[in-house]
């Protein structure tokens, strides 16, 4: 938990810098649509996709923590992470579709990478549906943690193995980012501006969600106390 106001302001400044650089400082890239302007979506698409993956890892970490220590807060953190993963996953899918439409002419072509992000979204949704279907907190915590961990190997398999083994359109885009096919200023902006900004946003959203949970607990407690007063 990071306290204070300073880092929130920092995230704001960082994000503004990332947006400014993405649209104004960085030039168009060779070999992309719209005279190379189409490549600029990677400043928002790539961090969203990475955060979707990261949130699954964080969720799995808290699931393990719950199973080891049995504190209900870990389970809540796990669920929060899954929810954020769903949000970022949807962002990555939408930005990816827009890019795909511009580059390859179709919004959706069941490319291995697209299929795998779709299945990851299904996993997040399945987790949340399963979790919401159980009302008793302890039982809900155990069952959803176990489900999150049971789905971990298939999820990692989809993220890391399937798109690399099966041939995909995405490899061209991947090579451009990782292999340095893009112009000089692309990678620094992506790694040092846009990615940390998105990471800060993730932590901020995570904390807000946990604060909401604490308020919810407080509310429950006050309600229970009120009931007891009325009974007396």
């Amino acid at each position, binding site marked *: 938990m990071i306290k204070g106001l300073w880092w929130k302001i920092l995230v704001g400044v960082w994000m503004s810098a990332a947006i400014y650089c993405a649209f104004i400082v960085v030039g168009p890239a060779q070999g992309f649509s719209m005279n190379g302007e189409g490549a600029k979506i990677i400043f928002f698409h790539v961090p969203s996709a990475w955060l979707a993956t990261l949130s699954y890892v964080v969720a799995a970490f808290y699931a393990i923590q719950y*199973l080891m220590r049995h504190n209900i807060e870990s389970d809540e953190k796990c669920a929060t992470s899954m929810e954020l993963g769903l949000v970022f996953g949807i962002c990555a899918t939408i930005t990816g579709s827009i890019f795909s439409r511009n580059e390859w002419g179709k919004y959706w072509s069941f490319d291995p990478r697209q*299929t795998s992000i779709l*299945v990851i979204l*299904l*996993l997040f949704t*399945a987790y949340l*549906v*399963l979790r919401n*279907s*159980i009302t008793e907190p*302890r*039982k809900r915590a*155990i*069952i959803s*943690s*176990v*489900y999150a*961990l*049971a*789905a*971990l*190997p*298939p999820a990692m*398999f*989809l993220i890391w*193995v*399937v798109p690399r*083994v*099966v041939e995909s359109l995405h490899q061209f885009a991947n090579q451009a980012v990782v292999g340095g096919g893009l112009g000089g200023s692309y990678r620094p902006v992506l790694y040092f501006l846009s990615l940390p900004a998105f990471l800060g946003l993730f932590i901020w959203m995570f904390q807000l969600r946990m604060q909401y949970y604490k308020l919810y607990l407080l509310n429950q407690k006050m309600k229970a106390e009120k009931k007891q007063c009325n009974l007396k």
Partner: protein
Amino acid sequence: MGRSNAFIGVDMVAQPNSSQQNGTTLSIIHQTLLILRKDILLELRNRAAIQAILLFSITTLIVVGFSAGGGANLPPDTLASLLWIILFFSAFSGLSHVFIREEESNTAIALRLTSEANAVLWGKLLFNTLLTFVIIIIIAPLYFIILNAPIVQPGKLVLSLFTGGIGLSVSATIIAVIIARSHGKPALFGAIGFPILLPMLFIAVDATRLTFQSYSNINVLNRDILGLASFDVLMIVTAGLLFPYVWESE
């Protein structure tokens, strides 16, 4: 052992028998086999799971065969994916039975008292795997006959079906215990199991497709089968690690 074998069901596991008389508890392998035996006997008694699965899969098979126009030459991709869709949905229509039955008849608590968690898992897993193999042995040949499948590499085809079948049953077993312990939301079973099984289904469809083509790359096929086998091992280990937590929860 002696006469206690005559009792079927949870009673049998609970019966003190010769190996417990000299102070030692049953080994895990022994317990596993007893649970497997109990489940097979219960299944043979009313045949609920196998009938449900068979009815479902044969109906789907007939629908698929009919709509494909009977003996039409489908391309290998379609043949392989239809076969795995049939197997996936038939497996998921019945494999949750092993744990839901224990919860419905309130025998889960007795089972938890008398045997170790891992023995329960391996017993149920073996039972589900047997059931899946029975389904595959019945459905796959029928499917190939009805749809005129051109089988080029029968050995590899059997291997891909069986490694895929193991993956199907392991994933279904771990999802089944999750569903059973969350007190009966059977409608969720398919929805929750689907994302877990999808990566395996991708490879299984690919492997099966390659066995229908004479010009397919043997290295890719071997890699697919190896991938299926490693997925099986991965899921078996995951199931073994996670099962005690769900099974022993209140």
